[in-house]
């Protein structure tokens, strides 16, 4: 088997960045439409109407759905025998640069000490890549361009084992109350429980990638997702925090086993413009883009 042309990986990366920033996934669009139908107040309906009009307009003129195209983050699942592992990182970086000028994306990567904007969305550790090595010879790429507004209200806390799952629920509810209108509700709430400080937040982020129509495969957790979904929508925070029936579009929970002494919990938010897209590149260079 020959090596894959690095241009193939790069072009696939550009294509999924483009798809993600312009076209919202179908599950998100459907949830927003349902939210619009369920709202009764003028203010809430007006916010969701603007959102739905904007989604349609972005698609028709092929412009990014939100000006905040985020810090570009990739989740990579690469087969151990994929013929081009050493090109992946470079391809993602090149694709980010090209996507920034061609789509275009907003340049969002700023050096924290000099405050200088790199201008092309690349920099130290950015775009960030989460690596996962799996069996096989194909490559799965997922991009999550996530805005700063929802990122700024992410929360983490080390609970004690005595706090238990009841404590976890309270922390999630408090996080949504504190976030209020800031993360552009209706949001998707991703929760990571267990592992360590780092693991729980990565799980919370990964939870945001799960489509809204898929509950956790574990019944106890699926039940908690539905319970929290109902409770959080009872807050009345509503679209954009201006009041209404839809505060969250969904709650997705992932977990890892915890240390005997700790119960870490992380809450990540995705704004209503919950952007994600994926592609698979096969060992022979063929590829398939998906993500709806």
């Amino acid at each position, binding site marked *: 088997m020959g090596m894959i042309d690095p241009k193939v990986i790069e072009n696939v990366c550009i294509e999924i960045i483009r798809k993600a920033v312009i076209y919202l996934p179908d599950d998100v669009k459907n949830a927003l439409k349902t939210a619009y139908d369920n709202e009764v107040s003028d*203010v809430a309906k*007006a*916010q969701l109407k*603007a*959102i739905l*009009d*904007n989604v349609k*307009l*972005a698609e028709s*003129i092929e*412009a*990014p*759905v*939100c*000006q*905040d*195209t985020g810090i570009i983050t990739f989740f990579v699942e690469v087969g151990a025998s994929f013929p081009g592992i050493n090109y992946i990182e470079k391809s993602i970086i090149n694709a980010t640069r090209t996507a920034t000028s061609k789509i*275009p*994306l*907003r*340049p*969002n990567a*700023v050096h924290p000490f000099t*405050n*200088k*904007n790199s*201008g092309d969305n690349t920099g130290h550790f950015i775009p960030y890549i989460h690596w996962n090595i799996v069996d096989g010879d194909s490559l799965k790429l997922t991009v999550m361009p996530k*805005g*700063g*507004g929802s990122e*700024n209200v992410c929360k983490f806390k080390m609970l004690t084992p005595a706090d238990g799952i009841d404590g976890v629920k*309270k922390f999630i*509810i*408090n996080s949504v*109350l504190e976030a*209020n*209108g*800031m993360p*552009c509700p209706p949001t998707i709430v991703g929760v990571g429980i267990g592992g360590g400080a780092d693991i729980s937040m990565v799980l919370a982020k990964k939870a945001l990638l799960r489509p809204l129509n898929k509950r956790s495969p574990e019944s106890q957790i699926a039940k908690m997702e539905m319970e929290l979904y109902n*409770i959080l929508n*009872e*807050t*009345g*925070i*509503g*679209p*954009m*925090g*201006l*009041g209404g029936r839809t505060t969250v579009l969904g709650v997705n929970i992932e977990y890892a086993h915890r240390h005997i002494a700790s119960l870490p919990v992380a809450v990540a938010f995705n*704004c*209503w*413009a919950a952007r994600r897209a994926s592609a698979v590149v096969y060992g022979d260079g063929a590829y398939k883009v998906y993500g709806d």
Partner: protein
Amino acid sequence: MEYKFKTPLSESDARTLRINDIVYLTGTIYTARDQAHKRILEIISRGDILPIDFRGMAIYHCGPIVKKINDEWIVVAAGPTTSTRMELYEYDVIRTLGVRMVIGKGGMGLRTAEACKAYGAVYAEFTGGAAVLAAQSIRRVKGVEWLDLGVPEALWILEVENFGPLTVVIDSYGANIHENVNKKAYEKMSSILK
């Protein structure tokens, strides 16, 4: 109530508005995020002159996506950014510049509300993330200052036509939609959080 206003706004324009009112703006608006707010106040405290006159104008918390075609800037997407980050500066910006409207999303704090009351201004919101919709009512880029801050943080001078709908969230009488919604939300959750 629904209003159509042209910039510059007068104090009585601003004082007419109440929370939940809808406004459409025509005229000129200036984008300013964290770094531009900081620079505005630095320039004022040095006693220097700002490159533009903000009196009666609207400040938009926004970092747009722009592209340059034949030396002309085109705004591709321009939704609002989270306003709370500008809370640190906004009181002084309203007080010293005579700004009549601050536009953003997510709400602002007590100091901004105080400035709205004392000097006659309002805080209004455009739907967060509705960036293409916002860009549709931007007729052209009249100019840009402080590009050294980077494209998102620069001060963009935008000519807009019927920019909105903008929801008045903090008025000049001390009312604040987010405060009301938030208070109710905590009350509703109090039994669960006990």
